[in-house]
C-alpha cells in the first residue's frame, strides 16, 4: 500500500508537469487580453505599454519557465520563510497577479476560509444528508420514502443552482428577512452573537450546495447499499444473532461505503472550483469566484496558478480515492 502510494505520487509529478504545460498553452491560445477592463478611450500605445509591463512581451516558453520556477521554488521558499522567519526568498519574484499586482498565493490564502467554511461545509453536510437517505432508500426499496427520495434528488439534480439560490434569497432574505443575502467575509467569529451571524449567513449557500451534492451522492449510496444488502455475509451476520442495526449499519454499510467513499473523494476537487455560481449568487467570494473574476480579467498568472492548484487537488484526490479504496477494502492489494 505504502509503496503503491509512493509510486503513484512519483507518477503524479510528470503528470502534473504535463498538465501545467497543457493549461499554460491553453490559456495562451485562449482569446482575451488583460487590458479588457481598460476603458476604450485609453489609446492603444498606452495599452501596449501596460501589456509589456506585465511581461507579456516575452516569448511563451520563457514565461512558462518563469512561472514554473516561481510556483515550485519561490513560493514554497516564501512559505518556508513565513513559517520560520528566514529570508531565503528575499528578492525573488513571486507569482504576481496581473489584476491586483499582488502575490497570487496570498490572495488564495485569503480566500481559503470562506471556501472551506461554505463550500467545504456544504459538501460535508450534503454527504451527511445523502448517506442516511441513500441507506434508508435502499433498505426500504420501493417504499414511499424511496420514491420521494428518488424524485427529490432527481429534481435537485436538474434544477441549476443559479435558480435555487435566487429563489432562496427572494424567499428568505427579501420576503422573510431571516438571512442576509450577502455573505460577509470579514465577519470574525469571537462570541456567541457573531457565531449566530456566521451561521445565518451560511445557511442559504450551504443549503443550496448541499442539496445539489446530496442529490448525487444519495443515488450512489442507494445503489451501493442495494448491491450489498443481498450478499451472503449479511445472512451470516444475522445468523450470528446480531441486531438489524449492527447488521445494516456495520456490516452492510462498511462494504457499501467502499465505492461511495471514492465518489465522495473524487467530488472534493470539483467542490473547490465548481461552486462558482453559488459563490456568485451569495457573494461568498471564495476560490471559485476568484477564478471566474481572474478569467474575466484575463489575469493569466492567477488563472494558471488556480487551475494548477485545482489540478493538483484532482490528481491528489484521485490518489486519495484509490488509497482509500485499498484501505477500506482489504481485498485490494496494489502491490
Amino acid at each position: 500500500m505504502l509503496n503503491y502510494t509512493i509510486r503513484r505520487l512519483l507518477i503524479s509529478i510528470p503528470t502534473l508537469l504535463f498538465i501545467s504545460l497543457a493549461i499554460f498553452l491553453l490559456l495562451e491560445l485562449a482569446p482575451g487580453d488583460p487590458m479588457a477592463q481598460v476603458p476604450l478611450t485609453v489609446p492603444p500605445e498606452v495599452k501596449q505599454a501596460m501589456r509589456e509591463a506585465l511581461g507579456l512581451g516575452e516569448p511563451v516558453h520563457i514565461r512558462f519557465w518563469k512561472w514554473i520556477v516561481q510556483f515550485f521554488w519561490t513560493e514554497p521558499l516564501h512559505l518556508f520563510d513565513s513559517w520560520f522567519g528566514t529570508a531565503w526568498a528575499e528578492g525573488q519574484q513571486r507569482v504576481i497577479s496581473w489584476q491586483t499586482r499582488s502575490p497570487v498565493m496570498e490572495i488564495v490564502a485569503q480566500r481559503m476560509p470562506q471556501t472551506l467554511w461554505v463550500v467545504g461545509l456544504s459538501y460535508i453536510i450534503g454527504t451527511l444528508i445523502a448517506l442516511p437517505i441513500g441507506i434508508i432508500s435502499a433498505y426500504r426499496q420501493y417504499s414511499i420514502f424511496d420514491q420521494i427520495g428518488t424524485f427529490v434528488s432527481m429534481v435537485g439534480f436538474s434544477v441549476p443552482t443559479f435558480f435555487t439560490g435566487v429563489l432562496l434569497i427572494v424567499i428568505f432574505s427579501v420576503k422573510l428577512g431571516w438571512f442576509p443575502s450577502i455573505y460577509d467575509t470579514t465577519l470574525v467569529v469571537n462570541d456567541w452573537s457573531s457565531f449566530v451571524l456566521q451561521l445565518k449567513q451560511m445557511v442559504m449557500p450551504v443549503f443550496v450546495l448541499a442539496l445539489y451534492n446530496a442529490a448525487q451522492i444519495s443515488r450512489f449510496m442507494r445503489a451501493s447499499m442495494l448491491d450489498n444488502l443481498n450478499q451472503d455475509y449479511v445472512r451470516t451476520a444475522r445468523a450470528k444473532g446480531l441486531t438489524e442495526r449492527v447488521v445494516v449499519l456495520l456490516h452492510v454499510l462498511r462494504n457499501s461505503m467502499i465505492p461511495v467513499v471514492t465518489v465522495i473523494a473524487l467530488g472534493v476537487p470539483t467542490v473547490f472550483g465548481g461552486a462558482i455560481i453559488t459563490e456568485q449568487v451569495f457573494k461568498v467570494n471564495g476560490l471559485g469566484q476568484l477564478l471566474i473574476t481572474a478569467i474575466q480579467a484575463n489575469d493569466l498568472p492567477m488563472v494558471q496558478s488556480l487551475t494548477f492548484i485545482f489540478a493538483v487537488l484532482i490528481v491528489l484526490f484521485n490518489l486519495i480515492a484509490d488509497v482509500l479504496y485499498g484501505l477500506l477494502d482489504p481485498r485490494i492489494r496494489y502491490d
Partner: protein
Amino acid sequence: MSDARAAKLVQVRDLKMHFPIHAGVLRTRVGEVKAVDGVSFDIYEGETLGLVGESGCGKSTCGRAVLRLYDLTSGSVRIDGTEIGDAGPQRLRRMRRVMQMVFQDPQASLNPRMTVAGIIGEPLVEHMKMSRKDRQERIYQLMDAVGLNRAFANRYPHEFSGGQRQRIGIARALALNPKFIICDEPIAALDVSIQAQVVNLLEDLQEEFGLTYLFISHDLSMVRHIADRVAVMYLGKIAELAPRDAIYAEPLHPYTQALLSAVPEPDPVLHDTQQRTVLKGDVPSPAKPPEGCNFCTRCPRVMDVCHRIDPEYREVAPGRYVACHLYNDAQTAEQTAAAMPA
C-alpha cells in the same frame, strides 16, 4: 488403449507458466508464482487424460497454457503436429479450430447477455463463412448433439440449470469440430445427478466425433470413470502419471495415495473399514515452493533427501511416471546432487 499406441495428438514438454510478482516503489519483479513448473506429458489421439490435484495446484493454468491462452514462460506445446508454444496470433487463430475448451463454472463462462444461439454460434461467426441460415442449422445440430431442446435457442444462460448450461458450453466447444478439448473441471459446479449426465454426454461425443480430452478435475471417482490415463499434479508439477487402472489399484506416489484414501466412499459399510491418510497442513504457496520435493512439507513418508533434492520425474514402469525419491535409485539422486553445485 494405452497399448494400442495411436498417434500423439498433444505433446507437452517442460511447460512452465510463471506469473511475475511485482513489488516495491518501482514495481520491480521480486519473484514469481510458479503455477506450472516444468510439466511434460503426451496425449494420444482419441484418449482422455485425466488431470487431478488439489485446488490451486496449477491444473487450470496448465490447461490454459496448453491452449495458449497465456503466453508461456517456457516449454513447448505441439498439437496436431503444429508447435503453438510460440505461435503468432494468426497461426494461433487457425489452431483454435483444432483445440477448444470447456470451463469449470458454467455460469461464469457464458456471457449473461447473449442468447444460447449467440453463444454457440460465436465460434462459427469467428471462423466460418456461413450464411445465416446455415449457421442456424448448425447451431440446431449442435444443440441436438448435446441434448438441448431447440426451443431454447433464444434463451439466456441464467434461465438454465447448471447441467444445461454446461451443455451449452460443450456445444460451443464442439462448434468448430475440434480434435482436442480441454475440459477444465466441467462438473465441479454441478449436482451429482447432473454430473453423470454431463460425463455421459462427454463420453458419447468422444465416441461420435473421435475427440481427445484433457479432463481436469478434482473428483477422483469421476476421473476414474472417464479417463484412460491419469496425471496427478501437486504444486505446479506432475507427481504421478499412469494408466487409470494402475493408478487406482496401486498408487505409487504418497500424495496419490493420500488423495485416493481421502475420497469418501458412498457406502456406510465400506466407509467404516476404509483406511485413510488425512494430510496435515495446507498446500504451500506456489510463490514460495519448499526446498527439495514440493510435497515434503505434508508427506507422511518424508525422508531426509526430500528436503534437499527435487525428485526426478521418470518412468518407473512402462507407462508409469512418478516423481518421488521412494522410487528413485537413491544413489543416482545423491550423485546427481553432488555433481551439481547446490
